[in-house]
């Protein structure tokens, strides 16, 4: 009997698609990060404001931690810039020939922007 066509997560992750596949994976992860952030925010607001529960304050401490904030800022910037790149390629398919160049431009935007925001966030965090 033939082996199933199903491709597991590990087998799929082992495919060496390089930079473009990494962009796609990061787009999914950053999207999930944004969903988690918004969900935690809504839950914390509901628990605190509607029920007056201490659990809401606990949830607040999770997504307001510096580590979570650094992660979510990366998610928001990457998801936005990469999404914009994909929209441009969808509108002008002839530009798809230059997708490698477009990925480089994307990182030229993301790295300094994220670096600047991280610098400001850490500076404020250290100042208390």
């Amino acid at each position: 009997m033939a082996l199933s066509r199903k491709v597991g997560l590990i087998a799929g992750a082992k495919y060496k698609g390089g930079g473009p596949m990494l962009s796609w994976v990061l787009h999914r992860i950053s999207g999930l990060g944004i969903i988690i952030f918004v969900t935690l925010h809504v839950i914390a607001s509901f628990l605190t404001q509607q029920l007056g529960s201490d659990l809401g304050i606990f949830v607040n401490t999770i997504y307001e931690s510096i580590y979570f904030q650094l992660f979510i800022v990366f998610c928001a910037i990457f998801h936005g810039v990469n999404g914009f790149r994909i929209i441009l390629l969808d509108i002008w398919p002839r530009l798809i020939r230059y997708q490698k160049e477009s990925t480089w431009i994307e990182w030229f935007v993301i790295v300094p922007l994220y670096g600047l925001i991280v610098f400001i966030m850490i500076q404020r965090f250290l100042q208390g």
Partner: protein
Amino acid sequence: MQVTLKIFRYNPEDGRKKHYDTFTLDADPTDRILDLLEQIKGSEDGTLGFRRACAHGVCGSDAIRINGVNRLACKVLVQDLKSRKVTIEPILGLPIEKDLIINMEPFFDHYRSVMPYFVNDDPPPSKERLQSPEDRERFDDTTKCILCAACSTSCPSYWVNEEYVGPAAIVNAHRFIFDNRDQAASERLEILNEQFGVYRCHTIFNCTDACPRDIQVTQAIGEVKKAIVNGRLD
């Protein structure tokens, strides 16, 4: 030089689970991976199963995963690889029949679903149906497809969705959609506008990298998407 090949093995008749066998061979830098597979089958293990036909990158029968990416075994030289340790596996997303041999039928079912043939109900002219070089240029790239399935089986959307027609089917639809002598473009666009048509493509680009004929697969899919949205072929 010595090359070590780690090859995926599965034989439904011997009762063993899927596993890997390792072979160490003497090879020249200009040997192709297909040559090494032939060497193993000829002198080390005659039970090794793999497909081959023309062995010159035209028939598309020997698409496999070489060190984690889809390639034709007859087009990759030992000197092209960064490592002397080579992992050989069947392409993903299609049922494995034996070792490196996969069942291509689901792939061809998707291919057939997009009407990959010329449709023109006008009476044929006395000579050929003429076409300008500019009109021909519009779909020239997608005429190069050899149906090796390297593109479709490199696509994560194709791996997880049996219904998705896949990049190869869209490329072959593109070849006829943008042929100005053909009269069934709107029917093909309607097929590809379905839930499991072009919109399952998430511009991952694995297909373009995997294509042994250097077809701009993602661009072709993008052009079909745009034709569906705009309702015209420009």
